[in-house]
């Protein structure tokens, strides 16, 4: 209401703001739109003019892409691995977060500080030790290896989010459960966990995205199709795709669309988890 009375300078700022917004949006979306558009063009059309719109709307590229590379198999691996790691991550850190939030014991703060160190370590620095440990455990080239590593990846964020979630739940609720005769485990699973839904969802979204998009450890710890994940599929088969650009663009589109759809649906959740994770950090 007050900004009706804006000065010429402020009007210019406003117009510049709109231009800036438009440029950012175009920069962010152009590469993806270009890839999706190209996936409907024939090889000839792609080579003739990289910017032209497709002349027909054919899905042959998608059929060929699925034939050339076992994308669906990799997709399945990704779903299994990421779902398992997300569940393990959220459950184990919910248990720990609950203890840190509600129980007093000797060394509590020290242990919490030690666990928080994980936030400081760039995971690329420990590629070799992790590889060594996975090998020693006999897990090389198994889905379990990636489940284990991905469960730990977003550990610091999950711990911070879940600890503060449980701190926000009144202790009286817990005491009431004890008075009613519920044991420790039942109190946690039937009373505390349902109250922590918001924090659990935030942690789960972050853990899922971390695992779903991870590339480095997937590359390092797998050697066959039985455990490879979707992020590897594209680069791994890029040689098979050479000279069939339509299929390659289709494959990229297949890999990208699920994340975009998930984000569109869970947008508010993603934004609030990111904020929750970073404020505590």
């Amino acid at each position, binding site marked *: 209401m007050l900004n009706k009375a804006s000065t010429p300078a402020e009007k210019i700022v406003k117009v510049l703001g709109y231009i800036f917004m438009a440029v950012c949006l175009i920069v962010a979306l152009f590469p993806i739109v270009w890839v999706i558009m190209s996936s409907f063009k024939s090889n000839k059309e792609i080579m003739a003019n990289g910017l032209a719109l497709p002349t027909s709307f054919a899905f042959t590229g998608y059929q060929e892409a699925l034939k050339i590379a076992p994308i669906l198999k990799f997709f399945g691996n990704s779903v299994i691995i990421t779902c398992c790691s997300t569940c393990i991550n959220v459950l184990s850190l919910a248990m720990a977060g609950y*203890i840190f939030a509600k129980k007093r014991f000797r060394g509590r703060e020290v242990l919490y500080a030690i666990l928080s160190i994980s936030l400081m370590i760039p995971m*690329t620095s420990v590629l070799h030790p992790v590889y060594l440990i996975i090998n020693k455990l006999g897990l090389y080239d198994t889905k379990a290896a990636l489940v284990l590593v991905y469960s*730990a990846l977003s550990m610091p964020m999950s711990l911070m989010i879940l600890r503060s979630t449980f701190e926000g739940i009144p202790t009286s609720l817990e005491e009431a459960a004890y008075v009613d005769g519920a044991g420790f485990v039942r109190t946690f699973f039937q009373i505390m966990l349902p109250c922590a839904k918001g924090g659990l969802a935030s942690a789960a979204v972050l853990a899922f995205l971390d695992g779903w998009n991870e590339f480095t450890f997937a590359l390092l710890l797998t050697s066959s199709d039985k455990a490879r994940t979707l992020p590897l599929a594209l680069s791994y088969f890029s040689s098979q795709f050479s000279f069939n650009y339509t299929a390659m663009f289709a494959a990229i589109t297949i890999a990208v669309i699920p994340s975009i759809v998930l984000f569109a649906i869970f947008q508010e959740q993603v934004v609030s988890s990111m904020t929750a994770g970073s404020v505590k950090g």
Partner: protein
Amino acid sequence: MKHNKIWIPIFLAPACILFLLVFALPLVLVFVTSLFEYKLMPNTFSFTGLSNYVKLFTQDPNFLPILKNTLVWILIHCTLHVVLGTALAFVLYKKPFGWKVVRTGYMIPNIISQSAIAMIFLNLYNASFGAVNSVLKSIGLEHLCHNWLFDNNTAFPAVTMIWLLFAGYTTTLVLAQLLSVDESIIEAARVDGASSLQIDFMIMFPLVRKMIGTTVIMAAAYMLQLFSMIYITTGGGPGVSTTNLPLYLYTTMKNRYDYGYANAIGVVIIAIGAVCMVAIRKLFRMNEEDY
């Protein structure tokens, strides 16, 4: 409530096991083995003190250029990238027409996997049908066309552009913080006659200072985790012109089987991360209270 005491360690155990296997033990191993001559071919494992580090900094012709690449990328990312994202957040928090669409759309490149982004840019930069050269041709600047990712002169900036402009995380975080500022503060400033530019710079900016600091730390950490986008596009070349420390660690380990040396690089990565974190926290006075 005596039974409590038994359950505390049981509830902590899963998280501690994860921490031990993926963080603590690797961290110890990386520090210890960096002091050893530890190779697969020929198979050796003997204590050599700091000689891996001495070799890194004085004898390895690749290391210093690669270190420089890494530091330059951290610096660019912590400044340009964060400024871009923050600027957009300051435009969006006034809720101009379409602000939600821009917020969502700008986030999309950050939500899809880095390897997909890398594949997309590999094609965008393609010499024959890539969009970059196609645009140049269509506006008559054919002489500016390059094989962007594989030309010595353009590889570094071309790779940098793959992540530089996509500051969706920064925008989203700073925007969330800006939107949580109490409206009455802004109204009070308006009543006192402050222009919207003055409000942005004198009131809002100091209020979101810590969040911007957080995004700078995240930007530095992101550059130290950077791997797939280089591995897939240039593979670090030509020469080592687009190699960073994580990629160098990976090739040292996978191609040369020189594990002690690779882990010395790992320690350097950890050290850079720690220094960045402390420096940025100081710069943005993140330990101090606002009020």
